[in-house]
């Protein structure tokens, strides 16, 4: 599932578990916003004060940021930098990689601290890692059992044309 050619697939059940985990993290870390992004820049989910945030743009730039620092890491012989921290005047960004392919972003202000965020992220990362493993397994099982049915299997040329009308 995690090969270059396969889709990331998300199901209700796992999304609920993911959201429960990051909502808990949001509370325990006193954070403002938390979101999860696929390494390719696609937003998986966001919790907290997201109303005034352009989460799509944030997701794309976060992935670009991780990709660029990952490139830097390789150049100096590191595998990757698993944690990035950006400090602002009011808000700070804590970015980490979960399960090798998902990016966890925590936005927090002076109501929290880097130490607290780091501690709580560590715990939540393990839980998230388990969930993504389940997700990968589910996709594998479905594929092996021939159960994976693309939701697009039945689309027609007209459906596609209508998108652009």
């Amino acid at each position, binding site marked *: 599932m995690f*090969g*270059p*050619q*396969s*889709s*990331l*697939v*998300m*199901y*209700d059940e*796992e*999304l*609920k578990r993911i959201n429960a985990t990051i909502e808990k993290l949001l509370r325990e870390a006193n954070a403002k916003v938390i979101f999860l992004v*696929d*390494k*390719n*820049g*696609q937003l*998986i989910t966001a919790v907290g004060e997201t109303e005034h945030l*352009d989460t*799509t*743009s944030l997701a*794309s*730039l976060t992935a*670009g940021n991780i*990709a*660029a620092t*990952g*490139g830097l890491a390789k150049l100096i012989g590191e595998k990757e930098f698993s944690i990035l921290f950006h400090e602002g005047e009011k808000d700070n960004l804590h970015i980490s990689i979960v399960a090798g392919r998902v990016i966890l972003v925590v936005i927090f202000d002076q109501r929290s601290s880097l130490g607290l965020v780091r501690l709580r992220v560590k715990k939540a990362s393990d839980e998230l890692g388990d969930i993504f493993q389940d997700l990968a397994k589910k996709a594998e099982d479905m*594929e092996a059992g021939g159960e*994976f*049915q*693309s*939701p*697009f*299997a*039945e*689309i027609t040329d007209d*459906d*596609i044309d*209508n*998108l*652009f009308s």
Partner: protein
Amino acid sequence: MSFINYASREINCKIVYYGPGLCGKTTNLQFVYQKTAPEAKGKMISLATETERTLFFDFLPLALGEIRGFKTRFHLYTVPGQVFYDASRKLILKGVDGVVFVADSQEERLDANIESLENLKVNLEEQGYQLEKLPFVMQYNKRDLPNVSPLEELRSLLNPTNVPEYEACATTGEGVFETLKAVAKLILIDLKKGGR
């Protein structure tokens, strides 16, 4: 690599515009941005130099509508075309679902086109992709200029496998949506086959 979200009933796909420096990749996205209804687009992000050359990427999220109850979103990216930004180009190709090659039709850019297309193949292969297996569309841009190569010449050098091809003038928008539509269609057909 598309992202199929059954929970929110959304599907996200990534389209990358590739091609030599100054061929008009960013201009393609700018035109799409200008002509798309506000509710169907997000912010366009351009990470560019002070002289408006793409430094890392341009990004434009589009929400095209629903197919079979799934919201279809396309994330459009351009790469920086200048030769020395190769490391960045590789990063942007990660997880790509479909590629548009924007060729600069001007005679003096013929070699640059060939080199860039070769570079695309190499960079894709490095990540386990094969261009022949990806949804891929060719755009011959800048057809409005006087010093352009004949179409047959471009075709034989850049499109020997006969993928869908379009003449364009990105500054006026000619051919821009046709190109986008063609690659989006190929991606959806690919998804339809399933198992990806």
